[in-house]
């Protein structure tokens, strides 16, 4: 800011001077020409001075004339101080303006700086110089006449260098040069305001923009809170430590990398995170660490933010033990006890926390009523490191029913939410409350084998076309009828639905709102056995309603199962494996909006009924 002000000032000044040059050229010029006042004895007899006026086109290094130099080189004149300066701030130096006294390369006091030709200590060492690091020191080139101090080296007869220094008055024959400079501060920086006790804060504000350390971790002091402050959306949840100290409820989440960091959990923000832990099994298995379930269960949450709130302990609802093969069994643990991780062998650690799910029940005043946690423990082998842990927190309204029925849109489907599907029974349509038990497709696994279970499935999300698959090995396909049935189950998934809701919130008691899944697959065909090679779901959807708020609805859904029509050898083309694919395609069938023609406005004015009352 200060620099830009100086720049604009100098521009203005140049302009006014330029005007003055043309209008009042008869005015006597008070050109303060400083000629070279060298102390010629200091440089020795090698130095030659030629004070000739010649005009050169070389561009010398321009130094702003207000460069403050070392105090020993300048005569310090105390300026008139408006206020008592702060004790440490000192005072500003008088700027050095003579070009022959400016020497920017003279860094060492009383020692010759190598290749610094303007250094006055270099009377003898100049013979060793190869070039001048600063060949010229110039005054402001905006003036019509300014001084330049030139420094150059000349090789003497004996091979050593000789210094040639000269101060020349350069003249500029330019229409826009400054002939007479009657305002000195136009071409130099204004003298800075001295910080005093009264203006320090304003100066600080003026000159500091951004700086390191400006980010401070603002901790909300508990005294600032109202008397009974409930939590609000996005607040961190306060925990009570063993000895009553307040902490923050933390839920591990991936930080800047995929590794777990202890991030606070935000109130009312459902969060599900997977992050990886780097552990050394024999060191971290038995010690209290992130693998221990106590870390996640021995927590007491404060019901409200304020000091006097009651602590709500986190209650362990269920502990599930997951075996190496992935089968899960629920453990019955007597209250208060916990399972500590045990090192079963140097490369195997048992009872390690794999998944933590908190369910926190909140009341309308923002208070925490109840908090439960369910855990999945498992075994960790050396090959499974870094370990992936899964953390989840859910917030449930107190008294609002344990599980609210979730819609996939209201009414139209929202892109990215799972399709709502169900099965037709004699009583009507039945659907699972859990949106994960819906129409789903096979998820690709690492072993890629279609017949090796259990398979993971991912729900069909509205609007997202997907493709995945698995492979079938030929030697597994010996029993065709069995393989065919197994493959169909793998592709369709367990409890394959029959109907799909046409809208995200289609009610169960309205069967017309549900669309039957059509299928081209006919298992009871001729005696020849056919293996399903691909399952393709074609979902046609359209937009209803206004152009501004269209509602997406499913019109029809079709399942296309391709089966092999030829023999194995032709299918696999010599290879031993056969890829089996599942795919989903969403096809928009909504017609484009048509420009509508407005009806001509009708003139609908009517006179008051008694307007002609005396005549009729």
């Amino acid at each position, binding site marked *: 800011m200060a*620099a830009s002000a100086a720049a604009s000032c100098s521009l203005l000044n140049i302009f006014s001077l330029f005007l003055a040059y043309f209008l009042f050229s008869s005015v006597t010029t008070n050109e303060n020409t400083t000629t070279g006042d060298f102390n010629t004895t200091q440089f020795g007899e090698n130095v030659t001075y030629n004070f000739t006026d010649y005009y050169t086109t070389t561009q010398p290094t321009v130094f702003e004339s207000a460069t403050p130099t070392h105090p020993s080189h300048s005569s310090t004149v105390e300026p008139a101080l408006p206020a008592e300066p702060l004790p440490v701030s000192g005072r500003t130096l008088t700027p050095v303006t003579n070009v022959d006294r400016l020497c920017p390369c003279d860094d060492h006091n009383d020692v010759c700086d190598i290749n610094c030709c303007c250094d006055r200590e270099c009377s003898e060492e100049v013979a060793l110089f190869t070039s001048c690091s600063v060949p010229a020191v110039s005054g402001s080139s905006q003036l019509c006449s300014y001084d330049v101090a030139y420094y150059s080296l000349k090789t003497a007869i004996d091979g050593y260098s000789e210094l040639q220094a000269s101060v020349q008055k350069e003249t500029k024959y330019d229409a826009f040069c400054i002939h007479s400079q009657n305002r000195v501060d136009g071409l130099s920086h204004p003298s800075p305001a001295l910080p005093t006790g009264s203006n320090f804060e304003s100066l600080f504000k003026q000159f500091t923009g*951004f700086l*390191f350390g400006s*980010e401070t*971790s603002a901790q909300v002091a508990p005294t600032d809170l109202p008397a009974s402050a409930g939590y609000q959306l996005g607040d961190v949840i306060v925990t009570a430590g063993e000895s009553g100290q307040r902490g923050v409820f933390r839920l591990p*989440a991936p930080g*800047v990398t995929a590794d777990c*960091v202890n991030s606070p959990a935000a109130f009312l923000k459902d969060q599900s995170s997977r992050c990886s832990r780097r552990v050394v099994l024999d060191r971290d298995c038995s010690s209290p660490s992130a693998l221990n379930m106590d870390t996640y269960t021995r927590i007491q949450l404060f019901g409200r933010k304020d000091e006097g709130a009651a602590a709500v302990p986190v209650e362990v609802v269920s502990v599930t033990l997951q075996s190496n093969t992935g089968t899960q069994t629920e453990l019955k643990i007597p209250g208060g006890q916990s399972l500590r991780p045990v090192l079963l062998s140097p490369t195997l650690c048992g009872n390690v926390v794999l998944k933590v799910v908190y369910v926190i029940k909140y009341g309308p005043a923002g208070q925490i009523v109840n908090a439960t946690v369910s855990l999945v423990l498992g075994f960790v082998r050396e090959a499974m490191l870094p370990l992936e842990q899964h953390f989840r927190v859910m917030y449930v309204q107190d008294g609002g029913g344990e599980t609210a029925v979730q819609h996939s849109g209201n009414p139209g489907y929202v892109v990215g939410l799972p399709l709502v599907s169900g099965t037709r029974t004699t009583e009507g349509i039945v659907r699972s409350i859990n949106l994960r038990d819906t129409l789903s497709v096979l998820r690709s696994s690492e072993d890629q084998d279609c017949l090796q279970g259990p398979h993971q499935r991912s729900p069909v999300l509205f609007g997202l076309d997907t493709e995945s698959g698995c492979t079938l090995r030929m030697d597994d396909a010996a029993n065709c009828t069995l393989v065919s049935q197994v493959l169909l189950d793998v592709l369709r998934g367990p409890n394959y639905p029959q109907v799909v809701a046409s809208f995200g919130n289609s009610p169960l008691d309205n069967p017309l709102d549900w669309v039957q899944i059509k299928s081209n697959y006919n298992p009871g065909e001729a005696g020849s056995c056919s293996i399903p090679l691909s399952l393709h779901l074609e979902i046609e959807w359209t937009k209803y309603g206004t152009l501004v708020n269209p509602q997406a609805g499913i019109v029809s859904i079709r399942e296309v199962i391709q089966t092999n029509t030829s023999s194995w050898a032709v299918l696999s083309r010599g290879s031993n494996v056969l890829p089996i694919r599942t795919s989903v395609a969403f096809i928009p069938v909504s017609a484009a909006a048509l420009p509508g023609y407005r009806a001509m406005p009708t003139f609908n004015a009517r006179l008051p009924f008694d307007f002609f009352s005396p005549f009729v």
Partner: protein
Amino acid sequence: MAFYEVYSHPALIRYKTSVCTRATLFLAAVLCLTYIPPLLVAYRSQGFWIKRSTYEEQPVVRFQYQTLLVAATSTQGDFVAWSTFPHLNNMLGPKLRIPAVSVREEDQNQDGKLDMLVLQLQLPLKPEEQVFSVQLLLTFSYQLFRMSTVAMQSLAYVQHSSSVPGAKLSVSGDLRLQQRTPLPHRGLYDIYNVSVIDGSSPFASSYDLDSIIRSYQSRNLTTVLSCPMPVWTVGRAAASPFELNAEIRYPVEVISYRPGFWETIKFAWIQYVSILLVFLWVFERIQRFVFQNQVLTTVPIPLGKPHLS
């Protein structure tokens, strides 16, 4: 005796006719053909109404002294990280490694606008650690003043990884402005004057590089660090720190904007009138031919003849 032209002046001849004549019809047709076709020609030859124009300006850029650094220290994915955000640093725990950073912003041409940022960062490393990749995020305050006043907070992102552990990464590039749509020609444009990284948030999700970059890239106006040639120096000694030197220049940008009403009219007027002049000349000749030769019957009133009626 040779004669020479001593003086000349044009003589004005008036041709009169009544309203319901063919001459009147001809005149109306000529007027229409003179003034309307230039408009059509100018419009159909494209670019009649200018939709987008550009100007040059050097932005006022300030480094905001917000930094986020992640360095992978092993091929297994160990890392150290540091930021200027206290909440994130607290969360990082043992992964936090505080480097020595020196920053300098330079105004090289003394025009009051900063031209360059020099950032030097020295990351101390343990003997068993090596640096395989570096991710560095810097935030800037970016302002434009000439047409519309733009104030925004932007970022520069450096990412480099190598299979060979490095001793030094040197980045020298320009902070370029990227526009998706032109700026308005006037007014205040400060919808992006919000923090790129919410440093006051205690949650880890606020510092996720993926979501930071994604929400940043969804903006209409962004800056990118254009550094085509980062230099990765290998061969670090065990005791020496990893060095990261960045020189980021703030160059003059060509900014496109939507011209205002009067600028659009001005350029349209220039095009219209320049084509109109040709039509005026052509139809003037046609009219002269028609009336001089009495192709359409009119009453010529020669010069100097007194008024008849």
